[in-house]
């Protein structure tokens, strides 16, 4: 029995639908990249500023910045 060797050239790959990325999604992805760049700079750290400088220890609200 002759067996046809299945090679990539002979096998017809099913056509995949090209995923259309909406403008909204594109914008979201771009924004996420921007945020991730900032987060990468921060590393595995949280985000907070608690003043330990003299005179600022009890600052919670500043009306006159």
């Amino acid at each position: 029995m002759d067996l046809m060797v299945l090679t990539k050239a002979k096998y017809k790959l099913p056509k995949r639908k090209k995923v259309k990325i909406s403008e909204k999604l594109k914008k979201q992805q771009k924004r996420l990249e921007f945020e991730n760049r900032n987060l990468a700079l921060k590393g595995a750290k949280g985000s907070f500023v608690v003043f330990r400088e003299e005179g600022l220890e009890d600052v919670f609200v500043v009306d006159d910045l």
Partner: protein
Amino acid sequence: MNRKVKNDIRKSVVGSKSTNFNWVQNGTRVMVDLWMYNFARNIPDFLDGDSVKLLNVFNNNSKSIKNHKPNHSAIVIGGGPSVYENNHLEILADSDYQGAIVCTDRMLAPCLKNGITPKKFPQFFVLTMDPYQITIKFYEDKIVKKHGKGISAIMSTCTIHETVEICKKSGLNIFWYHPLIDDFRKSESINKIMNMMSKSDKNPDGFPGMQTGGNAGCFSWIFSWAILGCSPVGLIGLNMGVGGDTPIEKTQHYDQVLNHFDNDKSKVGKLYRKVFNEDLGTESLLDPVFDFYREAFLDLVVRTPRWTKTVNATEGGSLFGKRIKNMKFTDFLNTNKD
């Protein structure tokens, strides 16, 4: 869990603190690019917007913050696991509590869906401090629009602009503040420059700068007493950590930390630690980010005026120690009706 990793988790005792405080603060400051990007896009909105100053009981009545006599309490609602484990949303919705509801942005839609609405609780606030895209999701739910007019949104001038747009469309009443990010006494302070750019006919002094503690939960607590003048302030869903038995891979910031250490799991474990809450006899696992947030909270709570009482009503979590009282949420509601 990898044994090496498990063994590397440090055990800590009451009141112990992490040692990387300055490391975190410096990390925070490198985020200025993102904050300024958002700030610039919000300028047209906040120039004509309301200031958080309008809600400040100390400004409006010229009362001294040190001698304040609080008449009302507040409940701060965070998104930690205990809020679901202990059915705190249902308990609150079924109560006749008349104090202020101060809700983190993450919990806005879950609160409204569980019957915690501005119609039932007229003093209803939601707070946003993060500059991230994720905050859009918190306000996108249809139920927010349904209740929008009764909600006061306390919003950072550095919030992503799309979130501001959604809040406007949903009819929320926005009140602006600047998140404090540096020493505003110095002329080169970013906060100082931000405020210069915020001055308008409507707000000739710009907006107040506010300490946030780095997360919406801590900021909601500060807002409750420092602006609304409420005390006691009851905390639910502010765990600042997870149950002691949780595998570190399941913690909120695991991927972020792993990535930072080039996927070296042994290094990740070293940054985790467990704390034992002596008040409740429970153990919490802290990822480094929550560890720092907890440290910020504990650092701030001891600096509050004497009339401020802070109640951890999560029935667990890592917030305990000086000036924090642990209490069951039902007990908090029974002792504080308004």
